């Protein structure tokens, strides 16, 4: 294992621990949806996005806003927010609101929570790049269930039609949504062919694999080689890293009780050893 990959895995474990701590302390929130986005978020914040001093230059939008504990946990490891906040998720006057809120936390580039809206804002950021003569890359993570929102396809149509290269559309394809699996709720069919038909180049990969994430995000930066907008479909596991939460819709937004909490931390520690 390379040094970089080792470091990456270590951060991912810490982030998973933060997520569980936060959600246990809050007594509500979305564990399954947060745990599936850990690797991509860690890669983006630690290895991909440009920072100028402590201020992020590139833009990031968590369109699936309910996974925000994962983002807070990454910001915590990146030391962009205070560790004391770990017990302040979802409580009154806390910067860590239940969904990303720019008014409470300046590290958030775009507040979300009503699904389907992030990709359109990404287009706004991209057009602003042209007018303001900046070159910020824009990363937007959407859930697979979220793709049922019509606005996503309005945005996809626009990105495909205008061949926008500086937006990286990332799908956290964890296969579950609020109540049931995506297939049992409203089957989205072949996502790759859908995005391809909208004018995207689509990469499908293991969303928990460092090398694959690294390769695809490096490819995103190579705009000269690319002719089409990029969509990265991350094949992920809902609840990844905590065995009893994995591959299940049950933990979409279930409260973590005391024994769940202890079991989760044990699981994360075990995974770290292996």
């Amino acid at each position, binding site marked *: 294992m390379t040094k970089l990959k080792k470091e990456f895995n270590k951060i991912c474990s810490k982030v998973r621990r933060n997520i569980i701590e936060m959600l246990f302390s809050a007594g509500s929130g979305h564990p399954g949806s947060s745990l599936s986005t850990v690797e991509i978020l860690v890669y983006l914040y630690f290895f991909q996005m440009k920072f100028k001093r402590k201020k992020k230059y590139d833009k990031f939008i968590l369109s699936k806003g309910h996974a925000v504990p994962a983002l807070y946990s990454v910001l915590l490891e990146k030391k962009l927010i205070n560790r004391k906040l770990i017990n302040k998720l979802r409580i009154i006057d806390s910067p860590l609101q239940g969904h990303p*809120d*720019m*008014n409470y936390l300046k590290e958030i*580039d*775009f*507040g*979300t*929570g*009503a699904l*389907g*809206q*992030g*990709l*359109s*804002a*990404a*287009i*706004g*950021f*991209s*057009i*602003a*790049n*042209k*007018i*303001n003569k900046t070159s910020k890359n824009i990363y937007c993570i959407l859930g697979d269930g979220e793709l049922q929102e*019509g*606005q996503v396809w*309005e*945005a996809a*149509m*626009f990105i495909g039609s205008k061949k926008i290269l500086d937006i990286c559309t990332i799908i956290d394809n964890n296969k579950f949504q609020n109540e049931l699996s995506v297939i049992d709720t409203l089957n989205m069919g072949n996502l790759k062919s859908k995005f391809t038909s909208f004018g995207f180049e689509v990469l499908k990969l293991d969303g928990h694999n460092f090398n694959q994430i690294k390769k695809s995000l490096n490819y995103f930066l190579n705009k000269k080689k690319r002719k089409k907008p990029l969509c990265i479909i991350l094949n992920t596991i809902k609840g990844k890293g905590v065995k009893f939460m994995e591959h299940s819709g049950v933990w979409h937004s279930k409260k973590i009780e005391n024994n769940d909490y202890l079991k989760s931390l044990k699981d994360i520690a075990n995974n770290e050893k292996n």
Partner: protein
Amino acid sequence: MKKINYSIRDTFGKALENIGKTNQKVVAISPDLKQATKLSYFFLKYPERSIETGIAEANAVGISAGLALSGLRPVLASFGAFLTGKNVEIRTSIAFNKAPVVLVGTHGGLIGPDGTTQAGLQDISIMRSMPNMLVIQPSTNNETKSALKYFLSKKNKDIVYLRISREITKEFFPKKYKFKIGKIIPVLDEYKDAYVFTSGPLLSNCFEAIKGIKGKKIGLGNLSSIKPIDIKSLRSIISKTSKIITFEDHTVYGGLGSAVNEAVNKLKCKVKIFNFGIDDIFTQSGSVPDLYKYYKLDEASIRKKIISCLNTFL
């Protein structure tokens, strides 16, 4: 009062084109209605700062939010009915994120043969309910020009819904009129018998209606700034009159009249308020004059309503 032959939306389009020259941050966004909203003038002059989204208002709202949060000053225009129909997108992407977008809803009121689905008749209520959102309905060409200039001045960061009517309206204000946010502009400075509030194209209907009532002292205030509302002037007006009458070409549920009611209610006084507008219905197709007659918002109907209010004993 001068007779003019161009509409408020034409004035809006021309004024925006002009402002585009001095404020390079202004960007126009249109979901396939630039000819109707008159964003077309800006699009022709500044194609590099003009975005056609196709018939995709939700995406247009999100794009505007992204532009605004990047330091630009987007002006998104569509029919008010369609634009404010994107309530959850405006609410989350724009208002919640404090993204300084100027939303322009044209075709407010009774718009004519196109019918009720195209008419903005609930737009003010929807937008007024949203935190961080101002709601302005300019009444004349000069006021429209001046309001747009105010909101697109380089320092302004307001999130605003501008309701722009489709019709040609009479001019009440001087060429050098300066729009001020949150001000009631007195048009008829009388108080004794009643005081009327309105804005938009109904201003001239109300003006003519009042002029035709002899022997009574009835005031008229231009309430173009629906949110924020001018509490100070309101307090002074209700201290001088016993009857307030509001007229709007919009549902009476949550519009201009409701805004007056809420404000007066806070002031704790004994003034009697009468609200007139569109009832809880969808309207229909017809010529504009026929529609205003049918829904009793033409000059003659307004006069009748004011007289009936005057004859109501408290």
